């Protein structure tokens, strides 16, 4: 009596299963390709590298100028008020980003000059 309905139900489940599996496989390959080109890893690492280089330049007992290279597909921004380094991908529509904190010192000024593929940090100490 109910056979037709049962068959339709079964087919519907198979179709939904198929759609979900296809979606999952596509997602997996998308993630996998991201891991292989490691763009997010570069973004995380660059944020930490810039923040720690800032701290290292700040801790130097002498005046110092240091140039740190990074990949030119990344955009680096620096907020001096909160001592935060923001790094994101330059690709349009790409929302991958990372931030890292540096140590704030009220008496020290570290000048930053961010260029296309490098950041130049120089220390100018003021007595406090």
């Amino acid at each position, binding site marked *: 009596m109910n056979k037709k309905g049962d068959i339709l139900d079964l087919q519907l*489940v198979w179709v939904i*299963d198929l759609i979900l*599996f296809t979606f*999952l496989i596509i997602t997996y390959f998308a993630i996998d390709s991201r891991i292989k080109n490691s763009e997010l890893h570069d973004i995380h690492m660059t944020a930490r590298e810039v923040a720690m280089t800032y*701290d290292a330049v700040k*801790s130097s007992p002498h005046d110092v100028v240091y140039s740190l290279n990074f990949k030119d597909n990344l955009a680096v921004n620096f907020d001096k008020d909160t001592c935060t380094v923001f790094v994101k991908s330059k690709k349009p529509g790409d929302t991958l980003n990372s931030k890292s904190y540096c140590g704030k010192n009220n008496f020290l000024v570290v000048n930053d000059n961010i260029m296309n593929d490098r950041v130049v940090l120089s220390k100018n100490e003021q*007595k406090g």
Partner: protein
Amino acid sequence: MTGWFYLKMNKRADAGNFLQLFIKFIPVFIVSGFIAIVAWNYLNEDINTHNLETYILTKDLLYSDSCLALSDSNVHPMTIDVKKISDEKLASCFTKSNMGYRITLLDKDKNEVKSAKSLTVRQEGYLVKTKSGYPVCKSIPEYRCSQRIDPILYSSDDNKKLGFLVTEVINFVG
């Protein structure tokens, strides 16, 4: 009475159908869970820079005259001016959003001379040391705690003495 009976039967049938559907989708849930875990681990990649950050912090404290380094006409790196050890000095010398620290100056016999901290109330609660290390910090994976001991000189009453600087650091790693 008859209406209520059919309603009850329909509910049982719905529950049976739902259970059947749920069982059929179990493989999908398992694979989704696996991919979600892979994605989560990938997006929250653990880059452990805690020890390096602690090292840079101690260099900041010991090398700069705006921190603890003794200064007259020259700066004396690795020599601490005891008068500079205060919470206020640390707050103006090195503050970081996800990091807190406590420093303790010990004399050569490991007796405490002076101590100061730059910690929030929560960080202070987590940075409690016992014989087994930092148990509170160990039990919360979002935090890392460590201790570093550096041999230093410190100036007290115009004399330079040998001592140790103990730096305890707590870091929020998310």
